[in-house]
């Protein structure tokens, strides 16, 4: 592996980062438009889109205005869903030892969330605030992701062009996947209030970003292994 490969990856990551910073506002606006489209398909009653300041010094992006009920306004169905979720997770924790810790952590989050919501029953989170927090986090993910992907996709791939293509594809995928997850979480919050927010944030926040990268990484490795086995030298010492 020559340093050309490394520098090509670094150059692409730097370019993506520079474009993400320069066009941060249009990117966030595009994210909001994709989210708006998905919310329309999902039938979520968005009443308005309001400007939200994502980072100081940047022009505001748009955040959806969607009713999120406080705990006392939550339907009986949502409370039943909470109980069923906890019971379901308890069963999973009992039966599948490998996922026990994850299930227990989610149960703790659900219980803590339920208790906090019950104690502070006037606690509210506006959908625009949620959109603001989500965009702040995802913007950082979009800035960091190319650098992680150089190491995961560009360096180990037998073909430099394919490695670079993976980075571009995954950056675009991450953008769309983020909008989809945000809409899903907002939809759940709209119907069930804030009870499910902590576990949803945990599972569908950066953990999902990690998971989709890992999913594609395993595919890339699967393909590379098939091509490289028996010709190790070609990628260990050349390019």
């Amino acid at each position, binding site marked *: *592996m020559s340093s050309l490969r490394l520098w090509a990856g670094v150059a692409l990551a730097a370019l993506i980062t520079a474009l993400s910073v320069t066009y941060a506002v249009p990117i966030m606006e595009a994210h909001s438009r994709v989210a708006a489209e998905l919310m329309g398909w999902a039938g979520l009653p968005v009443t308005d889109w309001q400007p939200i300041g*994502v*980072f*100081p010094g940047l022009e505001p992006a748009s955040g959806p205005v969607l009713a999120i009920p406080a705990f006392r306004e939550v339907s009986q169905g949502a409370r039943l869903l909470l109980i069923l979720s906890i019971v379901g997770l308890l069963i999973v924790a009992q039966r599948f*030892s*490998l*996922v*026990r*810790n*994850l299930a*227990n*952590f989610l149960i703790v*989050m659900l219980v*803590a969330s339920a208790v*906090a919501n019950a104690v*502070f029953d006037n*606690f509210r*989170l506006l959908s625009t*605030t949620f959109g603001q*927090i*989500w965009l*702040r*986090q995802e913007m*950082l*993910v979009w800035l*960091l992701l190319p650098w*992680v992907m150089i*190491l*995961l996709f560009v*360096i*180990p791939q037998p073909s430099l062009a394919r490695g670079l293509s993976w980075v571009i594809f995954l950056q675009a995928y991450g953008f769309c996947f983020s909008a989809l997850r945000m809409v899903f979480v907002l939809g759940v919050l709209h119907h069930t209030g804030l009870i499910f*927010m*902590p576990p949803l*944030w*945990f599972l569908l*926040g*950066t*953990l999902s*970003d*990690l*998971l989709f*990268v*890992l*999913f594609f*990484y*395993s*595919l*890339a*490795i*699967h393909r*590379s*292994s*098939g091509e*490289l*086995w*028996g010709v*190790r030298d070609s*990628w*260990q*010492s050349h390019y």
Partner: protein
Amino acid sequence: MAVTLLIGISYVIIGFAVAFLLLYAIRHYYLGYSRLRIEHPKDSMELVGFYMPRVTVLIPMHNEERVAADILKALVDSDYDWEKLEVIPINDRSEDKTQEIIDGFSKRYPFIQPLHRTGGPSGKPAALVEACERATGEILVMFDADYVPGRAVIKMLVTPFADPEVGASMGRVVPHNIGGSLLSGLLSLERSAGYQGVQQSRFNLGFTAQFGGTVGAVRAAALESVGGWNPQSLTEDTDLTFALLLNGWKTAYVNRAECYEEVPQTWAVRRRQLSRWVTGHTECLHNYWPDLMRSRFLTRWEKVDALFLLAMYWTAPMLVLGWVASLLLFFIPEAHQTPWLPVALAFLGYQLFSNQATFLEIGVASMLDGTRIRSLLLPLNLLNFFANTGAICNALRKFYWNRVWGSGGDGWYKTHRTRGASGDGSAFGGGAGAAVATRSTTGLYHARTQRD
């Protein structure tokens, strides 16, 4: 005021966790990257067969009737000169047929000299201490009883000792029960990353390889110079690694010396194994870090690497503390007003990447090994990661509790074997006394199975 303080403390915890884990991320990525970059991995395989000192093979056994015959058969099959070979199966108060199986082999092969322990402290380190007093080899090779060494493994493991500075060598452990369960499949990926990726990379970079206590060899003189095995340690291998390092001995890694082992197939077994490793490893951290920092044999980077190695289990509680702090911030509306919450959360989330920068190492090892189907299990390793995190935190909690309050702590625990017994104490066809050795025309010893 209290809320502001809580927010402040949470940010400090998250910041510290992020910084700590980021250092490990850099280390993992660097090791993975360098494993791919180095064109010719360091080894001494061109010398195999030219350097053949007298060797003693030590195999601690406790109730090993399921596996004892396999390893003894494999050692009889070994191409190491029998004149220079001594095998000491250490039967540590077994209550099953282990003694019978060992004695069966011993009667046929004079180089197998069993040690039946009936008293003294129990556990692997204590058994090794006693066996070393009887060993006559210049080099001591260690295998766990469930391991199945290949024919040339002993030759490969002793080759690095041609360098008089080498005090120990370590081979590669390869699981043979990959399809036993999802867990064993995931652990096989971890093992690949650990040996093919990290051990080889660290050895290439001039850092000390970690002696694993099995599929490893130690120079008897080096062992003596550091005071022998530490019978108090739960991880006598890690303890020895650092005792040798501090006394100026090198530990070599031999990637081609592959030996097959059985990895845990159930989480209960894995948790206990992990718990023992965490306790022993952290004990070594406390015992050795001051001497490591002062060592005159080590470069600055070697010290840093050694410290990283010893403190690696701290990453789990750091991550959990960060998660707890971020969970707290969720329930404090004032924390939502600053742009720093999502920044902190994003970076903490990214620590999953850093902690799992090992994924890069798994990928690298998969490619080097030509592993295809198993590499698709990679995303599921996240489950293993969560499971490990909990088990490590629990083990550390117990360790520090015992340290502070002076209670007994965990004892030595033998990993449960799941290999099916075939009635003759073997799953690989090595029944007690079934192998007959012959010398071939090339002068090498071979064994064939007698079907009587």
